[in-house]
């Protein structure tokens, strides 16, 4: 009985682990149309900001991939696998894969260390895909809980950057903000 319990627990844990970085949903759209729409889709804007990584979109067989790069180097990629379920019905399975180059400092390692951030990236992209295929605006309420969890996990560092003047991280944060204002003043007048 104990052994069976362990097996069940292991199976559930394995499922839970994989769902952190992947999800799937069905959409009332023809697979060819779904692929066309996803190839033209934008990225979940608020997660990456105005100066986030650039994205390269590729279609490979049944997959659409969005590859995030900075300086020509891949950070991570979203992989959407499309499956035709029938006329005007398509399943989209989404995965997030971090780059493994760099060993323990790789994006894959960093994402694994921050499951709440990884989950937010997946949830946000899943909502972007849904918004695209359902031809509607991005719905922030769909990601509210993932956003709250990710914020909570990172809130202490943000708070300390505000409240503890002596820390190096706060100093870097201030300098980054000040640099943004300087560059704005020197560049386009906003």
């Amino acid at each position: 009985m104990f052994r069976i319990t362990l097996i069940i627990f292991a199976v559930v844990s394995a499922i839970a682990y994989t769902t952190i970085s992947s999800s799937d949903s069905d959409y009332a759209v023809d697979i060819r149309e779904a692929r066309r729409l996803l190839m033209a889709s934008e990225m979940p804007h608020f997660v990456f900001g105005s100066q986030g990584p650039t994205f390269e979109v590729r279609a490979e067989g049944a997959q659409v991939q969005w590859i995030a790069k900075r300086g020509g180097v891949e950070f991570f990629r979203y992989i959407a696998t499309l499956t035709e379920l029938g006329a005007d019905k398509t399943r989209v399975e989404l995965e997030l894969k971090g780059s493994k180059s760099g060993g323990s400092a790789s994006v894959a390692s960093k994402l694994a260390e921050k499951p709440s951030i990884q989950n937010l990236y997946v949830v946000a992209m899943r909502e972007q895909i849904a918004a695209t295929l359902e031809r509607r605006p991005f719905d922030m309420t769909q990601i509210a809980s993932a956003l709250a969890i990710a914020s909570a996990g990172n809130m202490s560092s943000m708070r300390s950057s505000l409240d503890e003047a002596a820390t190096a991280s706060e100093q870097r944060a201030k300098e980054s903000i000040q640099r943004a204002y300087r560059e704005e003043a020197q560049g386009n007048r906003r």
Partner: protein
Amino acid sequence: MIPAFDSIMSRPLVTAIIVICGSILSGCSESKPEPGVYKLSVAEAYGRLSDNTLEELVLFRQCGILIHVKPEGRQGQQVIWRVYSSGKKVVEFSAALTALDDQNTKVTITFPTGPDGAEPYNGSQSYNRPAFNQPLRPAVEEQVAALLEGRPYDAKKAGRGQDNVCSIQRGGLENGLVFRVDDKLGTVGSPRK
């Protein structure tokens, strides 16, 4: 066996109690200022606020977009602050100054309400590119109080921001990302030139 009273009440302890009681009594003899009332003349209060760009409020409360506060003083009785980002006004609020006497001024903070009667950034609003963490009112009140009381802004008095979108974007700004108020939904915006 109960120790004698005077052996329990040692001299340092008695001194401490006298000091505490004294401070309590002195506190009772002076009426505490009403919230929003400051020991300044209207002219002095106006002088401190009318050209102030609320830098501490911006530093502690801004989100990911870059914001600029433009103050406008009116006839020595009101100061309006309009907040802009990328040339677009994102929020405004004002302080009305009322002289209670020669040395005391009441300051009332006002936000224009929307069509639904709600204040902007009241803690329940949703913005794609928020300018300030919500709720904004207590943070504005703390900034005004700090300026009129001649002390630094106290983030603890303003209370913690509750807007997760703001916090995420602020985190991005602190790490070199740039957000714009006119970013379109679903886009990453344009690279910084």
